């Protein structure tokens, strides 16, 4: 990060980025009647790939039963298209801000290999957590928060408590 700092543009102020996000979210509700999601597409694509590898087995897994339409795996999902868009939008924003830089982000006290291990572990915990909560930071937190869903505010409270408490025990990872 530091070596390309001179040419990277500064981040936007929180207020500006937050207003942008809020307007995108509002547009999603106005046009499509639904909010944003971060984990739904990953779950569906993972189930779809599992279905290619072992169709009989996947059909027996109740978590994925909603991904089938008339016995066929349904890939034409709003969130899959949205997530492709997230990647492209992030790419354009990173390149135009001079922030696209292949590398690994980690705390000073962990090795690259450790960072990869923790990335995988944290991802797996959130992959499971997002299925249990039926959504992630985007789907429950941002979208459910804006639509004032009771359970989404319970989720938000859990998210912040979980983050702050875990940080006490994992200081070494990032500091």
């Amino acid at each position: 990060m530091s070596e390309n700092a001179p040419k990277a543009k500064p981040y936007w102020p929180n207020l500006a980025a937050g207003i942008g996000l809020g307007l995108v979210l509002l547009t999603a509700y106005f046009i499509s009647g639904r909010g944003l999601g971060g984990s739904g597409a990953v779950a569906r694509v993972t189930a779809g790939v599992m279905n290619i590898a072992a169709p009989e087995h996947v059909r027996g897994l109740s978590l994925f039963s909603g991904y089938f339409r008339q016995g066929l795996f349904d890939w034409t999902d709003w969130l899959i298209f949205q997530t492709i868009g997230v990647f492209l939008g992030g790419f354009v924003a990173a390149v135009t801000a001079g922030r696209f830089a292949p590398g690994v982000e980690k705390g000073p006290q962990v090795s690259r290999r450790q960072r990869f291990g923790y990335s995988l572990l944290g991802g797996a915990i959130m992959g499971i957590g997002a299925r249990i909560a039926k959504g992630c930071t985007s789907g429950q937190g941002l979208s459910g928060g804006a639509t004032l869903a009771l359970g989404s505010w319970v989720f938000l409270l859990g998210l912040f408590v979980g983050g702050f408490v875990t940080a006490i025990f994992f200081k070494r990872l990032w500091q």
Partner: protein
Amino acid sequence: MNLIAPLAKSGFLGPDVNLAIAALIGFGFGFFLERAGFGSAKKLTAQWFGTDWSVFRVMFTGIVVAMIGILALDSLGILPFDSLYLNDTFLLPQTIGGLMMGGGFVIGGYCPGTAFVGLASGKWDALLYILGLCLGVVVAGELWDLIEPIMSIGSMGRVTLFEFFGVSSWLIGAVVIVIAVAGTRFANWFEQRSRGKNV
């Protein structure tokens, strides 16, 4: 009078157009996440150590802006609240899931949406994180019979905060704005305290 929104539900837009719009909306989502600095695991995780509260401020700004729009469009009869997809409430799963998401965020460095922005910024750790998400989905799918019994605990269906408390939606909206403003003030104070006066 006919509803005019959501456009995809009132027949103004076909399903294919709706998918194309999903990609455009995602583009905006990813763009603003990156501009906020959320392609960086260091920036994101600084939230949990209290040194940079951008995650809180951006998230709550987004929530407040969208919420005001949604409440206004509902009050005007343009976008009725009942026509929107609303997350059902499951108290125990959402508590457990929320705690896991907070914990996994610290350990993995991203949340699912921001990991795609991290990947798009060239971060290899974001790729590993996304593979971890996939692994988590496999584990959840295989072990769902064990997890499922807790999924119905505290199940309340489609319920909003204002329905739960039996008050007007705008009153809850005002409370959310107060929480966002008070939280931001607290965040600014906490940041200054933890970084010293050089900010």
